[in-house]
């Protein structure tokens, strides 16, 4: 049967390549869309640049050290710029206009109150449109809070120890809780956050895997219409040979497609999707699930034209719900739950985990197991359907 299988596969591959649409759908469209999405949505503001507004109503040492630290931090060089704004209202306006990505507001008398051990509050204004700027501003403010807490504690301790109020400040600063030094520790951008270019790249890979692998099962219906499938089935070869021969090609082309999208994302945006072995495992499990689902479609419809339509609808619905088109966290709650019904949702979750954490295969064992279960379930139903429809 090996030779018969090879004959079917070779013919399928040749037909797909001759057709030309195979290359377009497997390579050109997903890579182009992933690149365009990456440039458009991952582009100007996040993840490459952010402007943070600074409203300094205090005029004291804290705002000054923020300026100093942001300017001095190696990690933020070229990517984060501070812009001075006169008041909170102006900051809100600039934020809404998209001129800045976030703002930090120091109220009047902030530094003095902290110096007196009374603590103080800094306000951070963020916008959903620039998550990156929000992250940076948040990191800066976290740092300020830590210093403020340490400062407040030290001052209170000194006062309790009986040091006269006007000497406390000098004492505390001399003894190490050195002023509001805002040394930013590490890269505030790293950890827990995925480059949007990776997000859209993996989304396109997940979406197009359906089309690429589905085309092979669709061609089974084309051959039924053509009568060549019956000619094969009447010949001395096992019934699974035509289906398997095509499935192998569909699977292979889909793997090439997702890997090409992955490679192009890495090359164009320089952003890693995470541990290569783990990424490959997730992508393989996704393609298997997509193959089983499109095979089930082919088993249930009558004509290749119907298969086209149904595969199109299922692919886009799964892509939308599963976060291949719109990031999962920007979907409303119920839809985020619906994502768990799609392979795309599990694939997106797993790939986000890998890109964000740099973890290995073990970290995504759960989503991969779910993807394989979807593949087995849909595949089993598909085989039953194909048997009944005498395609197998």
């Amino acid at each position, binding site marked *: 049967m090996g030779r018969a299988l090879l004959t079917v596969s070779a*013919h399928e591959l040749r037909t797909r390549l001759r057709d030309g649409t195979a290359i377009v759908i497997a390579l050109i469209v997903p890579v182009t869309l992933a690149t365009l999405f990456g440039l458009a949505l991952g582009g100007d503001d996040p993840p490459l640049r952010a402007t943070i507004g600074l409203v300094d109503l205090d005029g004291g040492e804290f705002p000054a050290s923020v300026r100093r630290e942001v300017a001095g931090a190696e990690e933020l060089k070229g990517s984060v710029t501070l812009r001075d704004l006169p008041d909170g209202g102006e900051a809100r306006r600039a934020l809404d206009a998209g001129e800045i990505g976030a703002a930090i507001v120091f109220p009047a008398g902030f530094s003095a109150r902290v110096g007196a051990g009374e603590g103080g509050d800094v306000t951070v204004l963020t916008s959903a449109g620039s998550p990156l700027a929000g992250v940076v501003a948040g990191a800066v403010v976290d740092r300020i809070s830590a210093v403020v807490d340490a400062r407040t504690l030290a001052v209170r301790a000194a006062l309790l120890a009986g040091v006269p109020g006007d000497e406390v400040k000098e004492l505390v600063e001399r003894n190490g809780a050195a002023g509001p030094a805002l040394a930013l520790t590490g890269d505030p951008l790293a950890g827990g956050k995925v480059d949007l270019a990776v997000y859209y790249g993996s989304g396109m890979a997940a979406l197009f895997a359906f089309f690429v692998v589905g085309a092979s099962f669709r061609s089974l219906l084309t051959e039924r219409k053509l009568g060549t499938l019956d000619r094969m089935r009447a010949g*001395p070869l096992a019934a699974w040979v035509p289906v398997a021969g095509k499935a192998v090609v569909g699977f292979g082309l889909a793997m090439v497609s997702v890997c090409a999208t992955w490679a192009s994302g890495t090359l164009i945006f320089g952003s890693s999707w995470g541990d290569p072995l783990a990424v490959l495992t997730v992508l393989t499990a996704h393609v298997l699930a997509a193959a089983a689902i499109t095979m089930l479609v082919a088993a249930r419809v009558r004509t290749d034209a119907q298969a086209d339509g149904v595969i199109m609808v299922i692919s886009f619905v799964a892509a939308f719900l599963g976060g291949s088109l719109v990031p999962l966290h920007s979907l409303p709650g119920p839809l985020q739950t619906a994502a768990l019904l799609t392979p795309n949702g599990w694939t997106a979750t797993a790939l986000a985990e890998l890109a964000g954490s740099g973890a290995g295969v073990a970290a995504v064992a759960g989503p991969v197991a779910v993807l394989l279960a979807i593949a087995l379930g849909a595949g089993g139903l598909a085989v039953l359907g194909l048997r009944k429809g005498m395609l197998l």
Partner: protein
Amino acid sequence: MAAMTAALACRGLGKRYGDLVAVDDVGLSITPGQAYGLLGPNGAGKTTTISMLVGLLRPDAGEVLVGGVDLAREPLRAKARIGYVPQEIALYPELTGRENLRFFGRLFGLPRRGLAARVDEVLDLIGLADRADGKLGAYSGGMKRRVNIGAALLHRPQVLILDEPTVGVDPQSRKAILDGLERLVADGMALLYTSHYMEEVERVCDRVAIIDHGRIVADGTRRELVSLVGGADTVELVLDGDVAAAFGKLRAVEGVSEAARTGESSVRLLADGGRYLLPSLITAVEGHATVTAAQVVEPDLEATFLHLTGTTLRD
């Protein structure tokens, strides 16, 4: 004659689609070198029967033996002995004739070594050796039909099963196809030939089964079948006037055993001593219509069909 293992035999084949009985208790047996015809109008159940014989359709009842091998139990061994020519052209239009044959040859397990030679041999057999490298989609209907048959011959089957192989074919290609089939039979191939063209079945087949509404109503040699009609002749009349009323009168004429409308203004009658009955037929329609043409034909399978089923093969 010593019992010879039939190249193809079936017993009690049946298939229903819901309430419709498509095939009912069909049995037949074909020996090597025999050409067996399955003659019946559209919808009689020929394609359904063939689909079960080649393993494309699971029968509701009955069994199929190919050279003694049970098709249900050992499908691959049984199928290796069958060449199946589908009713529609089942080939890849974007490939050339030769590429189509090569594909199916490889798929059907022809050894790599002999493949090209066997493809050439088959191309010779179907008379397309010089046109083999054109795209199939650009072939004429007759050429496509010939490749359709050729693709079933590649793996040297012992039984060739053809489902209406000459539909939509020009007379020249039709003759080439029938000549080719006769040569194959002469070389010992068993043939199952279905058609609703009586002339073809009469020419190619030495044994014929008449199928109607899923049942085989009679089978035998051409001579045996024709003798079922007895001494009756077929009379074809062309009428002018109230044909329906005239038809009613005609079927009541003494000696007319069967009558069928064959067209807008034509009828076919089965009548004992047809030629002597002509005058009474002409007077019978008087007042309703006039007979503008009359022809008395020797009994043939068409007449047998009319005799057995009361209808015509073609409508």
